């Protein structure tokens, strides 16, 4: 199944737009791309999911180019409360569970 690669960490400042890119070169035709957010001492929380082009919700936007080999999570006007670890996953509802690997994620730090 598709392996994902993301930066280990990123820093930004309040009010800025933050873009976190995830590479998934071996994504399969039926795979969806899902992003999770994890705050300290909490379980991960679903943020957004998409298959192609662009998806937007109240929290973030997800940009997926035509070849789907990467995706970018965009957080508009971040605040200190967006400091968290962000995980990118690919797979289908039928994906073997053991292959849905969260990995180490991207640790985002927002400064005042």
């Amino acid at each position, binding site marked *: 199944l598709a392996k994902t690669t993301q930066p280990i960490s990123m820093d930004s400042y309040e009010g800025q737009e933050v873009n976190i890119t995830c590479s998934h070169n071996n994504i399969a035709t039926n795979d969806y791309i899902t992003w999770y957010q994890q705050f300290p001492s909490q379980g991960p929380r679903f943020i957004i*999911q998409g298959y192609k082009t662009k998806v937007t919700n109240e929290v973030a936007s997800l940009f997926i180019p035509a070849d789907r080999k990467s995706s970018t999570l965009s957080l508009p006007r971040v605040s200190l409360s967006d400091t968290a670890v962000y995980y990118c996953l690919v*797979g289908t509802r039928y994906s073997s569970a053991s292959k849905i690997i969260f*990995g180490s994620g991207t640790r985002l730090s927002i400064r005042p």
Partner: protein
Amino acid sequence: GAGVSQSPSNKVTEKGKDVELRCDPISGHTALYWYRQRLGQGLEFLIYFQGNSAPDKSGLPSDRFSAERTGESVSTLTIQRTQQEDSAVYLCASRDPGSYNEQFFGPGTRLTVL
């Protein structure tokens, strides 16, 4: 409705003791996952239940780890003869069968083995 719940929230035990961790998934979610997360690290898949199918146990690190699930409800993760390296947060997640990887996580159980 209620989310995924886990108990206990914290567990401190002595090396060599057995522990049992409990997960109550969201009602109607047929898929249930257990993960382990060591301090500062990502999630490590342990086991997956999907309806009445045989569980996927491929992530269990040793035969000291086992898990059960009663139908499509409660699951228990048991660690026998605990070791210090078992210290971690154990997270449970459930998923609606119709969703694509949208897992709902519980708050976790923090296990400390002294």
